[in-house]
């Protein structure tokens, strides 16, 4: 059975720095997969490669069996793969609603309707629906630049949903956000998952990941260390080693005890 998103043996180097050294990962349809790893392990680079912002030097990326490695980001999006950024990127000078209207529908041909008034009634209705879903509908007419950090994260989540993607790559959706909002975001993800969307979530907040994601993959120095249920991964000595760095067996045991 082929997974929905398959990443095989991806390599990516920037000058002398090998960011990804044979990273492999498979995300099954309907899963909320987690991706964790210490800083510099290559998580964002992996996202960039999958979503077309970087070209892999080597390796395969397949979405629903079809290769997407090297496609430009707009084509990747058109194939049904949406992505958020670590530091939320929104269109500051446009209103929140206009931000929603930028995302293009998947089957839309470009030339037709390019000069038509931006945002048909149906598109606006859907946009408001999604804004409602993430809870910022009342901010629809504000310039997006006025939004708080947490609100921007919600906006970004909302607008990647506009084209109804099958897979969502979320880069630190809970980063720097207050605990109530974190739970809200987790709930939304679960709800979307129930309606059939697959997720791959990068997060530093281990509690968030352990709670939400199954399975969890650990990335270290550009390679996947292990994949498994949150509990297994938590106990894996190689993982603790990667996070804590070069400790001997006893220390690792002790640290593992403390984490449990």
């Amino acid at each position: 059975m082929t997974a929905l998103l398959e990443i095989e043996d991806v390599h990516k180097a920037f000058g002398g720095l090998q960011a990804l050294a044979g990273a492999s990962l498979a995300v099954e349809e309907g899963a909320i997969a987690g991706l964790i790893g210490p800083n510099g392990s290559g998580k964002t680079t992996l996202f960039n490669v999958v979503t077309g912002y970087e070209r892999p030097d080597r390796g395969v990326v397949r979405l629903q069996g079809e290769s997407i490695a090297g496609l430009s980001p707009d084509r990747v999006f058109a194939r049904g793969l949406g992505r958020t950024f670590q530091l939320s990127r929104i269109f500051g000078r446009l209103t929140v609603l206009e931000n929603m209207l930028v995302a293009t529908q998947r089957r839309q041909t470009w030339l037709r309707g390019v000069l038509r008034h931006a945002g048909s009634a149906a598109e606006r209705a859907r946009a408001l629906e999604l804004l409602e879903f993430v809870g910022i509908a009342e901010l629809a007419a504000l310039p997006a630049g006025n939004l708080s950090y947490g609100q921007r994260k919600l906006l970004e989540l909302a607008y990647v949903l506009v084209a109804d993607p099958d897979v969502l790559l979320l880069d630190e959706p809970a980063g720097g956000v207050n605990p109530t909002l974190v739970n809200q975001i987790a709930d939304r993800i679960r709800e979307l998952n129930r309606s059939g969307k697959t997720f791959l979530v990068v997060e530093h907040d281990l509690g968030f990941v352990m709670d939400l994601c199954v399975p969890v993959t650990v990335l270290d120095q550009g390679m996947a260390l292990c994949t498994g249920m949150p509990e297994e991964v938590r106990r894996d000595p190689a993982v603790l080693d990667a996070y804590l760095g070069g400790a001997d067996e006893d220390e690792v045991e002790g640290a593992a005890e403390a984490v449990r």
Partner: protein
Amino acid sequence: MTSQYAQAVVDGVLSGGVYALMAAGLTLIFGVMDVINIAQGVMVVLGAYLSYALSVHLGLDLFATLVVTVPALFVVGVAVEWLFMRRLADRDRTAMSILVTYAVAIIIEGILIQVFGPDFVQLHGPYVDKSVHVLGFYLPYIYLYGFMLAVVLLGLLYALLYLTRFGQALRASLQDRRAAELIGIEVNRVRTLTFGIGVAVTAAGGMVFGATNAFNPNSGYDLISRLLTIVILGGLGSIGGALVAAVFMLVVEDVVAVAWSPTWSTLVFFAVLVIVLTFRPSGLFGRTAVRAQ
């Protein structure tokens, strides 16, 4: 026939060195501040006029005028940065800098017209029209001295960048502004001084330019177009790139002038840029754009 070409190459290298100096200032300013100083061209002309005034009214030797003009233009650069560039917000900084520096360029041009009039002038000196005959090549003294001056100044610039603490701070700001700020580098002061330095070198270039070309206040436009072309070809922010690009462009232009005709050489100058950019959008040595954060 080949000696004609060889001579053209030599000419190109020599004048390329001088252009490199002026372009280095421009690319430095961009690299540190994300600012495109459109006024660089007219500032070269300003430097030329200052040298002209000093040499005509005080009888100073052309190279001696640099003692006055280089610091003078440094002050001009610092003043422009402090008065205008500093007020630019970070967003759209580059686009706004084009407009602001263009406005400054217009003002300087206007002042030059008022003070010196619109007629063409040229700097004169005992060695301007003479050449030294070496190995079958004619090396005009002025170009030779100008080239040596450029080498000296670029060397000083290099020393400043790599051997002093200020240079370290400058390079840090060049590589990553935010990181530099976080370390506590006074980015504002670095910017102001960099702008001053970037403009000061135009004084030297201006003197040589003025001695080898007839110029008037309008000459800045053609100059800035060439400097921009050189800087982009070499890669924005890369001083080494500006050096290579300047010499390369000038050699190509001079060779084409001999091989074809002087009228087409100007076209080739710009065509080279277009061709290079078609294949390498960030220039020869530019930092390739990283798309995502």
